[in-house]
């Protein structure tokens, strides 16, 4: 059960500079737990203290955004590629105002 995980530049400080690492798990949640054992701190940059996926990152299984695959429950298979990208977003307003406006 090997999953190839692509790490974005900003998180390579957790992987000793490696652009890709290998992990294992039947779900995304399992994989991130596995990875955190080898690369402490990585998981904390992807998951909020409440246990949800951080809005500052996009995670994909192969080419599909995990938000459409059950998020942390997304199923993984041997040979899958998981890609982590920084979400590119922003706006003219502060976060609190922006989220209040968007409901």
């Amino acid at each position: 059960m090997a999953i190839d995980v692509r790490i974005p530049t900003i998180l390579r400080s957790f992987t000793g500079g490696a652009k890709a690492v290998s992990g294992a798990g039947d779900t995304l949640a399992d994989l991130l737990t596995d990875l955190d054992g080898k690369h402490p701190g990585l998981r904390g940059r992807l998951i909020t203290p409440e246990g949800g996926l951080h809005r500052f990152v996009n995670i994909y299984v192969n080419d599909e955004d995990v938000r459409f695959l059950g998020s942390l429950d997304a199923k993984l298979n041997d040979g899958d590629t998981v890609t982590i990208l920084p979400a590119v977003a922003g706006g003219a307003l502060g976060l609190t105002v922006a989220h209040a406006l968007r409901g």
Partner: protein
Amino acid sequence: MTTALTIEQAILDAIVAHARRDHPDEACGVVAGPVGSDRPMRHIPMDNAERSTTFYRFDSKEQFRVWAEMDDRDEEPVVIYHSHTATEAYPSRTDISYAGEPNAHYLLVSTREPEQTEIRSFRILDGVVTEEPVNAVQSYMFGQSPSAVDYECRS
């Protein structure tokens, strides 16, 4: 780390045209360049998935495709740009909290004045914003400033 953004005038013009076209919604996109070169060469306008006057977000599917393509071409996002349509071209707290490409120049364009477009560039690292000058050159091959002249043949 360089302390200025050097970019071809034609690409800047295309970015401004994109921002004007999408006004009053925020426009956003990337200029890709060879990894480590700090040269923005390939302009990629992106969809603003929010279609909002006050917020922007790259469509995650489109971003995946564009980032994969850059990877295949040994490129990286040298410039990440977006527009503010009613405020100045300065990163908001939201912009700062999302800034996740440490090698990128964050270019902001303000279209609040119809006749005049404000263009400013920033580095955003660990929540710290540093403004840098924008040097517009005619081209990298025949740059106006000596530092932009390059006689190497790049294919």
